[in-house]
Structures are given as structure tokens and as C-alpha cells.
């Protein structure tokens, strides 16, 4: 799990996605794409951004929820807290390398 978080955070586009979700939870794929292109000049395809979201989701940093016919994405910072406590409080360290 921790490995997935580091992998997810290693990519600048994925960090931008998280930056934008901090500003507002509950974004559609359309809003995320719009924000990346207009605010950061990242003109990626929707498919590419979907794949980035899938990586963030598998690391638990983004949670997607279906609400009726819509699909929204929320930020989840809980995996980050585990990472910080791993070094801040070594006695509570994860067993994973």
C-alpha cells in the first residue's frame, strides 16, 4: 500500500490532480481535465487522466463515488498520514519495507 502511495505521488500530473482536489472535493472527470488544461497547461487526453486517477485510486489517495448517473472524485489524505507517522513515530512503523 505504501509503495503504491509513493508511486502515485512520483508523477507531477498526479500531484496536480491532488492539488486541484484540495481546492474542491467531488469533481467530475470533466472538471479535473478542465482544471489541468486551463490552470496548468496540461492538455492530456481524458483517457490519460482517467489512468492517472486509477493510479491515485489504487493508492487510496482518491476515492470515486457514483451518485445516480454521475461519478465524482474526492481526495483522501489518510494514506499520507500513515506515511508521516511511519517516520515521526518509529515504534508505530509499518512492517512493509
Amino acid at each position: 500500500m505504501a509503495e503504491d502511495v509513493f508511486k502515485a505521488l512520483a508523477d507531477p500530473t498526479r500531484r496536480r490532480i491532488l492539488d486541484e482536489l484540495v481546492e474542491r472535493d467531488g469533481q467530475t472527470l470533466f472538471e479535473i481535465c478542465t482544471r489541468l488544461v486551463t490552470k496548468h497547461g496540461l492538455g492530456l487526453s481524458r483517457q490519460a487522466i482517467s489512468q492517472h486517477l486509477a493510479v491515485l485510486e489504487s493508492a487510496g489517495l482518491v476515492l470515486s463515488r457514483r451518485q445516480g448517473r454521475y461519478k465524482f472524485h474526492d481526495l483522501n489524505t489518510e494514506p499520507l498520514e500513515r506515511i508521516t507517522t511511519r517516520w515521526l513515530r518509529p515504534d508505530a512503523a509499518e512492517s512493509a519495507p
Partner: protein
Amino acid sequence: MKIHLSSVFVDDQDKALRFYTDVLGFVKKHDVPLGEDRWLTVASPEDPDGTELLLEPSGHPAVKPYKTALVQDGIPATSFAVDDVHAEFNRLRELGVHFTQEPLEMGPVTTAVLDDTCGNLIQIVHSK
């Protein structure tokens, strides 16, 4: 050349006419019976002879999966200009309209995205 007509696929023409006139504020332009369906268009009261919007029946089998996929990803079917997205967002929300994207300022433009209750998302936009 100029844009004369644009269209949205609507699940129910009666319901669509009510939403596009009573809620959004367009005016009915043409209403011609064509068998089961109607040639039903609305226009802006600010430009009654301008571009018409056709409220097109969505009976074709390709339409439903197309609309479903767009709505799931939050992609608007079309976009309308307003004077002030924030004011319009507040007015429409009071009327019970559901937004999938609240007003978002992006440099020179502000946008929001709403559900037209007939299977589509609609973007509203203003430029500074």
C-alpha cells in the same frame, strides 16, 4: 455562414420544453407535430431570431449510451452564455436545479455545469 440550429437529445419533449422555458428561461420558437415527435425549438428571449436550440427526441438506440457515458464523466452536451455564472447558479439552485460542477473561475472565463433533467449536462459560461 453562421450557426442556425443546435440540438440536444431529450428523453421527453414535454418535460424538456418545461425545463428549457420555465427554468432556464428560453422561449418556444417552433412546435411542429411530426408523427410521434415534434420539431420543437427554443430561442433566447435576448435574441429571438438568433440560433435555435432543437429539443430532439432521443429514441435512436445509439443516443442513450452516448448520453449516459457523457453524464458519467461530467461532460456537457452544449454550452450557454450568461451574464453572471454565480448569479445564475444561485437562481437555478433555488429552483431545484442540480449542478455537477459549481462555478469555477479559470482565467477569463467562469463556468458551471447543470443537469437538464432530460439526460444531459449543460455548461453555462461568462467571460470577463
